């Protein structure tokens, strides 16, 4: 089955973001595919490279990086939410005259059309958080 995921909550508030990444790993391990993970609203903060975490807590970006590196999963953050949350790639940082990028380059910034496309190309769309 083809799945897409929609992540709405911040990775530092509750387990939703982590659960979504774990779900994706399990689904792939069982032979399903993940068409795309779309991050909206506070969910976009999963892409941040600026968070600093205590040694006994795991970095919430790492499960997403692992997912993209191991399985090539498409990770897309919503541009309007991303900008509001200060999540910028180099292009957006230049465009808005900010000091530099703030997201891990494994994430792509794009529009809501990518969520609509994910709906159209997936058997199931699973929402995490909200």
């Amino acid at each position, binding site marked *: 089955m*083809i799945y897409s995921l929609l992540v709405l909550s911040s990775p530092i508030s509750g387990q939703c973001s982590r659960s979504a990444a774990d779900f994706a790993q399990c689904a792939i391990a069982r032979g399903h595919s993940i068409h795309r993970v779309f991050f909206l*609203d*506070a969910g976009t903060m999963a892409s941040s490279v600026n968070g600093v975490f205590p040694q006994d807590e795991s970095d919430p970006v790492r499960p997403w990086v692992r997912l993209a590196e191991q399985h090539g999963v498409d990770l897309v953050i919503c541009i309007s939410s991303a900008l509001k949350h200060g999540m910028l790639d180099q292009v957006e940082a230049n465009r808005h005259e900010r000091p530099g990028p703030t997201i891990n380059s494994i994430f792509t910034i794009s529009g809501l059309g990518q*969520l*609509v496309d994910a*709906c159209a190309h997936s058997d199931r769309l699973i929402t995490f958080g909200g």
Partner: protein
Amino acid sequence: MAQAGKKTVLIVLRHSPYGSSLAKASLDVALATAAFEQSVDLLFLGDGVLQLLPEQDSHSLGIKNFGRQLASLPLYDINCAYVDAEAAARYNLDLTKAPVETRVLDPKKMHQLMVGYDHLLGF
């Protein structure tokens, strides 16, 4: 397996209009889905029915008027929104003055509605 193309989508809006940014995010998704010519309907559930309050004025909050954005739904061919009847009654909501035309559903009808779509997007 998924056939790429037109899917029917029900967007379930559970958040009050100004309590978090999720109400705005869910409406943006609804408008984008409609703009890409997918079949989309809205269901206002629980606290989400407060998005339908008449005469909203968000000026002092410094954010966009949500009711005014809802009123633009017919421009996207979304002409009717479904509403949780129990929640509307709980908040004593006058839906005749809602920013968009509505149809109230009891829990059984809401369930029947939900099972009829390819995708449910819950916010």
